[in-house]
Structure formats: C-alpha cells, structure tokens
C-alpha cells in the first residue's frame, strides 16, 4: 500500500506512456518528466517568495503581504501579472542582443541541473554515471550569464555587480566542490542515485546519513555556507547589494526579464539545496527506520523546504559581509578546512569500523582543533574588540 503510494508518479508515468506506440516511449517519457520539473519547481518558487516575505516580516515585526488571497498567499500571482504587463525598458546604450539573451542563458543551466537530482525512489530524469560532475559543471555556466547581464547593460553599477558576483562564485565554488569530494571518496561513485543508496540503511533505527559523521557534518556546514554564497543570498548578497550598487547585474532589467532573473536565482537555490540534501542529508531517505512508510518525494520536498527555511532565517538575521571579509572567509578559512576535511575523510575510511569509537574521537578532535585554531588565528589579525561608537553616544 505504502509502496504503491511511494511509486505513484513512476506508475502514472508508465501508465501514460503505455497509451502511445512503443517507439515513442523513449522520447515522450523524458518530455513528461521535464514538464513535471518545469511545473513543480517554479510553483515552489512562487510559494517560497510569499513564505520568504512573510517570514522576513515576522522577523522584522511587521505583517508582510496579507492582502491578495487567503493570508496573502496569492501575492505571487499579482506580482507575476504585474511583471508581465510592465514596460520592458532597454537602455539606449545597451548591447541589445546580449542584454536580451542574458536572462535566458541564466535559466538554461539552472534548469539543466534538475535533470540529475533524485527527487524520490526511482525518480531521476537522467541517471548519469557522472551526475555530480554534470551538476557542478552546468552550475558553473551561470557565471557567463551574470557577466552578460552586467556587461551588456552599459551601467557601472551593473558591471560592478557582475564583477563581484563572478569573483564570489569562483571563490566559493572551490570549497563547495571540495566538500562534495569527501562524499564521492566515501561512496566511490559520482552517481547521485548511488550516493543516496549508500545512505539508505539503518542501525538502531537511525539512518546512515553522511551528516551523522564528523567529516560529513563539517562538509555539510561548509557546503551550506558555500551554497548560500553561490546563490547570492544574504549574508553573501554583495552582487546585488541594494544599498551600494542598486541591484547589481540586473539593475537595467525590468518587467518579465527581471522576473526571470528572480526565478533563476531561486531555482538555483533550490537545486543547490537539493544537491546538499542528496550528498549529506540522505536524499529521499527517512531519518528513522520507523518513518520509511512516508513517500520518498515527501521527504525530499520536506528537507528542501527545511533548508529554504534556514536560508530565510539567515537572511533575516545576518548583516551583509564586506568584500574583503567575503574573500578572507572563502580563501583563508573555508578552503583550508575543506582540504583538511578530505584528509579526515581518508583517516575515517582507513580506521574502519573496527575502531568505531576511536575514529569518532580522532576525526572530531582534528576538525575541532583546526576550526578553533584557524578561527583564533584569523581573528588575531582583525584587531576585533568591543565596538566603539564615535558619534552615536
């Protein structure tokens, strides 16, 4: 019964394809999957924009959107219609073709990344042997579109935003990839379905998620910080810091092109959160063996919403970093920790299950010592002390 509920989408797909001639199957079934992805995730985007605005309102002691529809949850429809009927302003000095292509080029790689994510048991569109590499490679192509948007607008704020965005994305891609490498070492495969399967067994009712190991926890934290920076969200929202450079690389975009940038950014955030879930949080598996009857896609979506909630929380809580702080964090703190984490994962593997308690102790001690010493060492040069107000007192 529960198994059938778990596989309901897979069964429905086979049932639908069964109506067509057999030769059409390999062409039609990916199309249906693509339509599914194209409807679910932009729908999730619409909901999350409202949830984010309401959550930020809650944090900032105000109401947030509450006029359109029940509790303001139809606000996204009003915003979408507004974006569609707005005038599409293109600056006279802009490079028209590149300016037009930039939002399109942003959406293509972001949507391509969804092809390899396993949303549930047997629910993956393209089960590539090198799925993780595909995700990272295609995700890296986003930078080209950011540059196109910033350069073609012929506006110094746009160009500054694009430069900041590219510097930030290139820097944080390294800790992101290095923290994912530990998982690849442990599983021995770049295939995302294999990685989920490796975490799908239980001892004493608790799942073997990678996050429940010292290297996995460190890798997960590094991954989440790097993915915040990759998706340009607070505290890493320098590329579009509205108080400094208006809106960064999409300053000169209006109407639905602006909405496309917004959509691309949120879809990128969901995709990278989904990758984090797949690598460290067990993908579509349940945390406790007594909860495995809940369908796998519900788990995936639930974890995704949980991470998005944390992202909204961070956005409401932390102030924006300065450019030098951003680069220091990436190169002096996260990169050494990520490299050390690879070594720790190797130690964990070679100590083996015979040294179960010992390897927990050793690996945690190495990581904690490195974290504390790096942090203290970097803080010493910063001359941080009690905040002194020059004029406000």
């Amino acid at each position: 019964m529960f198994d059938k509920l778990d596989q309901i989408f897979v069964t429905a797909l086979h049932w639908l394809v069964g109506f067509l001639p057999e030769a059409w199957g390999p062409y039609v079934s990916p199309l249906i999957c693509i339509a599914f992805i194209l409807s679910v995730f932009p729908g999730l985007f619409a909901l999350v924009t409202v949830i984010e605005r309401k959550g930020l309102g809650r944090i900032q002691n105000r109401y947030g959107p509450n006029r359109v529809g029940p509790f303001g949850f139809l606000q996204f429809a009003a915003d979408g219609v507004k974006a569609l009927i707005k005038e599409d302003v293109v600056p006279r000095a802009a490079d028209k073709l590149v300016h037009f292509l930039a939002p399109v080029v942003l959406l293509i790689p972001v949507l391509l990344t969804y092809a390899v994510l396993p949303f549930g048991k047997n629910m993956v569109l393209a089960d590539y042997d090198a799925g993780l590499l595909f995700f990272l490679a295609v995700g890296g192509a986003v930078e080209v579109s950011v540059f196109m948007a910033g350069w073609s607008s012929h506006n110094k704020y746009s160009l500054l935003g694009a430069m900041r965005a590219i510097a930030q994305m290139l820097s944080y891609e390294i800790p992101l990839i290095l923290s994912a490498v530990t998982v690849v070492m442990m599983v021995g495969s770049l295939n995302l379905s294999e990685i989920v399967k490796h975490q799908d067994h239980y001892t004493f009712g608790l799942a073997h998620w990678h996050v429940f190991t010292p290297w996995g926890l460190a890798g997960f934290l590094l991954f989440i910080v790097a993915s915040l920076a990759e998706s340009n969200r607070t505290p890493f929202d320098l590329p579009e810091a509205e108080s400094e450079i208006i809106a960064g690389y999409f300053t000169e975009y209006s109407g639905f092109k602006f909405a496309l940038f917004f959509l691309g950014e949120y879809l990128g955030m969901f995709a990278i959160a989904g990758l984090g879930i797949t690598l460290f949080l067990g993908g579509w598996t349940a945390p406790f063996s007594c909860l495995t009857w809940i369908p796998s896609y519900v788990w995936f979506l639930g974890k995704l919403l949980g991470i998005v909630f944390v992202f909204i929380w961070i956005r409401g809580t932390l102030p924006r970093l300065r450019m030098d702080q951003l680069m220091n964090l990436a190169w002096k703190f996260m990169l050494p920790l990520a490299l050390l984490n690879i070594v720790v994962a190797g130690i964990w593997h070679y100590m083996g299950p015979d040294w179960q308690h010992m390897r927990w102790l050793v690996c945690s001690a190495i990581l904690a010592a490195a974290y504390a010493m790096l942090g203290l060492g970097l803080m010493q040069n910063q001359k941080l002390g009690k905040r002194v107000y020059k004029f406000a007192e």
Partner: protein
Amino acid sequence: MPIAFILTAVVTLLAAAAAMSLRNLVHCALMLAVSFSGIAAIYLQLNAEFVGFTEILVYVGAIAILIVMAILLTRSGETPDKSVLTSGWMAGIVVTVFVFVLLGWAVLNSSALPQTMAPAPHATVKNIGDVLMTKYVLPLEIIALMLTAAMIGAVVIAYREEAPKTKREEGIPIPPRDSLLPPPSPTGEKA
C-alpha cells in the same frame, strides 16, 4: 551521419568563425564559450561523459570567464572602427587551405594509422579514476606540481601590499586649509 551531430558541428564551427571575425572582443569571447559548449556536446555524443562535463566545467565555467575578465581589466570595451581583417587576408586563406590539405593528406596516407577501427572502450568515470591513480599517477603528480608552482608564482607577482602614498609623501603641495573656504563676508552675515 546523425542529425544531432550535424547540428552541433554546424553550431560549433559557426561560433568558432564568429569568435574570430566579430569586432567586439567581448562578443568574440562569448562566441568562444558557445563553441566550447558545442565541443562538449560532441564529446557527449561520443559517450565520453567525463570529458564532456569537464570541458564545460573548465572551459565554459572558468576559461571563458577568465578571458572576459582579462579583456575588461586590460582595455576599454570600445569596438575598433577598422575592419578586423588585415590587408593580406586573401593570401592567408590560400596558405591555410594549402597547409590543411597537406596535413590532411599526410595523416590519411600515414602507415601508422590502424587499418581496422579498434572497438570503442567502455570508459566510465571509475575506469578513468583507476587508470589515473595507477598507470598514469606520475604524469598526474607532475602536472599537479607544475600547476601549484604556477599558482604560487602568480600569487608572488600579485602580492605587493604597499600602503598608498599620501599627498605629503609624494611632494604634492597641499593648499592651506583656509584657502578652501569662501572668503568671509565683510558684514559678518552668513552667506
């Protein structure tokens, strides 16, 4: 010839030609990125997943960005008025065609070419990793060492942390502070 190959080949070649002939350097760099993606697509059609994805990761994600950053940092984005073709372009084409024909003829008639096609090996990522870590571990380590040396060299060249000189140190005369203020009005009223 499958239609997918013809399409990607045409796109790749057109993009490469545009990358050579467009006037605006940034446009050229973007067309180069398109051409890199086309090459990656051709690798994928040959079932070389790893090489195809690495092509996108390295060339589209990093090299293309490096090129546009270099263009932006070294010269203004203005397009030159004169044509990109030099005066001797006709002779250039003749020489190019001649060299291509010669090389093609030499390669096709070479006795080193195997007469029968070897069967395509099944190269998974795991196989590539195994071979890199066993048979080709020495070249891999040498490349890693060279890249590290190059990176350290780049950091050493770029690492000059000097405090910017003040005007006084550069010997620029600083006007007295009073001369910057407007002259006081004789009646003592506020202007």
